[in-house]
């Protein structure tokens, strides 16, 4: 059996269309099979509600008197910088832009939520003054009702699937995938699973450019394939836009991802017309058939290692097994809100308030994600580290350590025993040991040494130095053998050369 979008729209107008949420569709297909599902169901509604960092909005303020050219100038909305490289009184405010005074507690995402809630926003603008726009400064307040247009735009959303995250390191990581506890202490994922729009239509047969969608509580549209659209790896994305003035702040929530940045939780729902058995089948797949990988975010590289494959069902259960251990899972996208959106969209369609649309153009099915082109050679630890090794043994005297530090004009003295790094002594450690009666290096050395590996990018190690408030790291190989030492001196000498 085959149906067309027009036929389904006629049924919607007559109030006769049968609409199921994706969760209900999964149950139906499980019990009756896809063939019966096509006969019985016209539309499947989906929903997703997660942090969508690429979200922002184009705002048009209208002209001041005397007029000001904000374009090319500076604009702050509640002290959050907006992008002004547009015409005179248009700006773009993105969800990850950060308040100049409140830092990560308030950002562009919060500005967007406050706008949709109807709150007053403070505008501070600076222009450079032209013959037609003589004014140079403006300070005012406005609400969304004062704007000519507020167009919400999200160039990357609705990931068909996304990897889950964990952390092999022995320290907590603060990532865009949330707080990752040490030693595989937890797993996070951000995926609406059965409710995820593109997972229901993985061949992009019904979702395409021009598709009418639920966006932030109003109607919006798919405007393009999303950025980083990666259909070849089953990670398609969508770009969407809509009229923010009609949106509802329940579905637009500014947020702070701890020690990472600000963002915006955005609610999106897409209807899938059940045109034939193929669509009924994919729309009815349950979460045990949806798979992704758990990646180790402890490795600060683009190519993060896969820890294991996992089904969405396991992730949804709240715990997964990693290396024989049961690990708790945090979803980061709200399943309850995704469900609410799929139910709201279902009601809209049942009441005839929302009609389906056919794509104007299909989404690309042959594209893969390319990495950034890098023209500069990456500077690695081995390029800058000092290879001439001055070391000391743990049983040697503090006088011997002091002599070495003075002789070689160094601050860090790695402590080595049988070829292995066992500690580190700094000139500071020696200074504070004065008068304590301690005699041996082993009594004052730091045993838990922060180290680096020769192949690591220097930037990664610089961040480690900052985090631990130290000025140097011994460089060791996989077996713990000392290969060199990298200090802030080595790094600043290189920075000056560059």
């Amino acid at each position, binding site marked *: 059996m085959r149906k067309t979008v027009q036929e389904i729209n006629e049924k919607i107008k007559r109030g006769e269309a049968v609409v199921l949420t994706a969760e209900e569709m999964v149950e139906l297909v499980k019990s009756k099979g896809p063939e019966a599902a096509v006969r019985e169901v016209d539309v499947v509604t989906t929903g997703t509600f997660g942090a969508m960092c690429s979200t922002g909005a184009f705002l048009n303020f209208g002209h001041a008197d005397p007029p000001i050219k904000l374009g090319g100038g500076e604009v702050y909305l509640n002290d959050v910088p907006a992008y002004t490289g547009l015409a005179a009184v248009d700006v773009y405010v993105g969800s990850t832009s950060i308040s100049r005074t409140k830092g990560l507690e308030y950002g562009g995402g919060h500005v967007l939520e406050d706008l949709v809630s109807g709150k007053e926003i403070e505008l501070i603008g600076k222009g450079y003054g032209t013959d037609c726009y003589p004014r140079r400064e403006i300070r005012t307040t406005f609400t969304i009702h004062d704007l000519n247009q507020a167009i919400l735009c999200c160039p990357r959303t609705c990931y068909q699937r996304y990897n889950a995250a964990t952390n092999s390191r022995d320290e907590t990581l603060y990532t865009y995938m949330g*707080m990752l506890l040490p030693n595989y202490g937890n797993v996070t994922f951000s995926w609406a699973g059965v409710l995820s729009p593109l997972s229901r239509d993985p061949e992009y047969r019904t979702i395409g450019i021009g598709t009418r969608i639920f966006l932030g509580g109003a109607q919006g549209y798919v405007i393009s394939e999303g950025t980083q659209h990666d259909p070849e790896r089953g990670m398609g994305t969508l770009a969407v836009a809509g009229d923010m003035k009609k949106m509802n702040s329940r579905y637009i929530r500014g947020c702070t991802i701890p020690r990472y940045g600000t*963002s915006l939780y955005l609610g999106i729902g897409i209807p899938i017309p059940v045109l034939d058995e193929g669509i009924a089948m994919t729309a009815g797949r349950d979460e045990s058939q949806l798979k992704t990988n758990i990646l180790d975010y402890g490795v600060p590289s683009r190519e993060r290692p896969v820890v294991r494959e996992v089904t969405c069902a396991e992730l949804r259960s*709240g715990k997964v097994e990693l290396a024989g251990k049961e690990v708790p*899972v*945090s979803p980061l996208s709200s*399943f309850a*809100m995704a*469900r609410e959106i799929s139910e709201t969209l279902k009601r809209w369609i049942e009441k005839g308030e929302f009609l389906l649309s056919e794509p104007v153009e299909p989404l690309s099915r042959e594209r893969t994600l390319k990495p950034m082109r890098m023209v500069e050679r990456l500077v690695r630890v081995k390029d800058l580290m000092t290879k001439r090794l001055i070391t000391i043994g743990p049983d040697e005297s503090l006088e011997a350590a002091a002599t070495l530090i003075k002789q070689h004009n160094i601050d860090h003295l790695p402590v080595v025993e049988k070829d292995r790094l066992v500690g580190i002594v700094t000139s500071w450690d020696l200074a504070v040991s004065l008068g304590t009666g301690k005699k041996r290096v082993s009594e004052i050395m730091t045993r838990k040494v922060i180290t680096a590996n020769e192949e690591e990018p220097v930037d990664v190690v610089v961040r480690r130095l900052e985090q631990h408030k130290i000025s140097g790291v011994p460089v060791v190989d996989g077996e713990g053998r000392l290969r060199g030492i990298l200090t802030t001196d080595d790094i600043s000498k290189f920075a000056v050369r560059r």
Partner: protein
Amino acid sequence: MRKILLRYSPEKSSEPILASVIKDTGVLLNVLQAKVNSRGGEIIVAVEDDERVPEIIRTFQSRGVDAEELKLTTVLNRDACMDCGACLSLCPTKALHFNPEYRLELDKEKCVYCKLCIEACPVRALSILSLE
């Protein structure tokens, strides 16, 4: 149910004080969290019978363990919460959990005030308030 924070010095960490207090008072103490090693540490215990709390505190103190009632409460602001679940895997006692509808719930009795969820919540829906 009330909660008591016990602080052990290094000297006391090797003595079976918790067991002896339970044995001598006959009050069952539910260990919510324990971080003790040879350098001392902290244990949080829950007491079912509110009336026995002062006695329990006195007993621990007489045996050299610093004990005080935890007069704190964790608050989940349901109006702000979006049920994202970012806090779930950080909660050491599953005080924060989903109900069958995937809406977040807080079981205050299980909370040990580790504060991980406070920082993790993207919309600041969780807080700890002092009851004093």
